[in-house]
């Protein structure tokens, strides 16, 4: 985009914010018009978000894990085992639905999950990302063991601006494609992945679509991208 155009768009956005939409609608060039409109939308949203930020509460581990009663729930039980084997790897207290881990020791834990005979999680059923707000992204793994027929979910939260998780692509081969897709959609980087490329979108696409703050780029190779209607009411 040339400097002139940028200046023009900035001017138009100013006007638009003050309620003058006609000057934007009057632009002849379709690409330029769509650019101006999307810039305007972005500016409006930024203004909205700025007023909404709420300080997040700091969570602390209230109960030490060893104090809790042993539970039959697998997520609890295996979380317990992980905590014993890899101290300090848990990110929050144990619960029935998932195990929350820190990313640091993830590769070793994953290897252990697969090799430990009593667990033997040989199948990575599902892997996906999640934008959980609070400036955090989460990677979620659903494991299943074909031999023992049991099932756990593991979640790893990482900061949005520095999203790095060790890759488990070499442990479960399907992790290769799953992690590429998560990188593609959420921008979580998987360190140690041997083929770290986008999966579904083109390599030169900007942004990560499934993040909640995602803005569609205005043009792709000179083609204006139509805007999506906002939400359902």
């Amino acid at each position: 985009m040339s400097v002139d155009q940028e200046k023009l768009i900035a001017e138009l956005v100013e006007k638009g914010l003050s309620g003058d939409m006609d000057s934007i609608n009057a632009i002849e060039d379709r690409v330029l018009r769509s650019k101006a409109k999307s810039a305007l939308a972005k500016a409006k949203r930024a203004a909205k978000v700025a007023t909404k930020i709420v300080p997040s509460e700091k969570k602390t581990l209230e109960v030490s894990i060893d104090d809790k009663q042993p539970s039959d729930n697998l997520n609890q039980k295996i979380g317990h085992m992980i905590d014993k084997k890899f101290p300090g790897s848990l990110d929050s207290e144990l619960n029935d639905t998932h195990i929350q881990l820190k990313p640091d020791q993830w590769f070793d834990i994953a290897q252990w999950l697969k090799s430990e005979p009593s667990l033997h999680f040989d199948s990575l059923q599902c892997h996906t990302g999640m934008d959980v707000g609070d400036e955090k992204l989460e990677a979620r793994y659903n494991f299943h063991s074909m031999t023992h027929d049991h099932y756990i979910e593991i979640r790893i939260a990482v900061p949005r601006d520095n999203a790095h998780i060790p890759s488990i692509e070499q442990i479960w081969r399907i992790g290769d494609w799953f992690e590429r897709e998560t990188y593609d959609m959420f921008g979580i980087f998987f360190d140690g992945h041997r083929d770290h490329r986008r999966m579904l979108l083109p390599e030169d696409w900007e942004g990560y679509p499934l993040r909640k703050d995602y803005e569609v780029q205005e043009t792709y190779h000179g083609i204006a991208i139509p805007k999506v209607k906002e939400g359902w009411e």
Partner: protein
Amino acid sequence: MGVVHGEQMVLNIGPQHPSTHGVLRLKVKTDGEIISEITPVIGYLHRCFEKHCENMTYDQVIPYTDRCDYLAAMANNFGYVVAVEELMELKVPEKVDYIRVIMAEFQRIASHLLALGVYGLDIGAFTPFLFMLRDRERILDMFEMTCGARLLYNYMWVGGVSHDLPKGFVETAFQFLDYFEPQIEEYNNLLTYNKIFIERTADIGVLPPEVAISYGVSGPNLRASGVKWDLRKNAPYSIYDKFDFDVCIGDGGQGSLGDCWDRYYVRMLEVKESVKILRQALAQIPKDGDVHQAIPKKIRPPKGSIYSRTETPRGDLGFYIESDGSPIPTRVKMRSPAFTALAVLGELSEGWMMSDVISILGSLDIVLGEIDR
């Protein structure tokens, strides 16, 4: 035997190619006819399914699931509504369960018939394809009779189904099954035990069970490798625990365990098992009863997440749904069986010949709508 290595050629199979089963591109490095490396490139059919879901209510997602695996739309509907109901801890009336199972099994037959027929087409046999499509057409007629649509049904809703079974459906279904069962023999005679077909598929693209599990391959592809794993049996959802049927596994009947022929034949056997389930379900279905569970207009599942799996014709279809208590899902992730099946292609086809790659790809029975979502 001495092997002469010439210059490698990079060949693009697709995105427009008769046997890529959709818009798939395979970047292939070949040495003459021998394939040395194969990289699938996907995303040509990406329609932002998961992003769309974050802007719609739970009900509005259902038509989109149809369009993912467009050859087994009923099974996808089923998978999604089961997941949402599990999240809501909702029990549906018994009749609804029966209707869903009947539809899902008919869909399995229809989908397998297409898979088998198209596989024949990939190998070069044209006639079995049309024979199988002829019979698939009758199943689609029954779907049309039920909900008015032939390909994309939007039939199963959260808490029920859109319409009750029409008058005379059960009789029509029995008539079809009586007609259809002998046809399986005809397919076997025409294609399955054809010498050339066996030559082309047996011992080709052998998928060992450990590799299959590591790649998350599921459904008929996994069972062909000798792993007895079927969610309908191992983790029954809906009312599958009420029916008596076998889980068919490959046995390396014509070559080695887990080859293309096994993958083909397991599907043929599964069609027979589906007929078995259908006969039981059609006989047991309750005559009266409501086909809608009373649920609020706007579905608001409780806060939480669920990963629910169902067995579609292509394998384990997983839906990971995260709800924040609002009528709009925070995240819907679809773990599609064809995605994992395609991931294994690179490993399966290295070292085989050009024609074998087509035969391996066909035997995995992928649907690009589901892979790209």
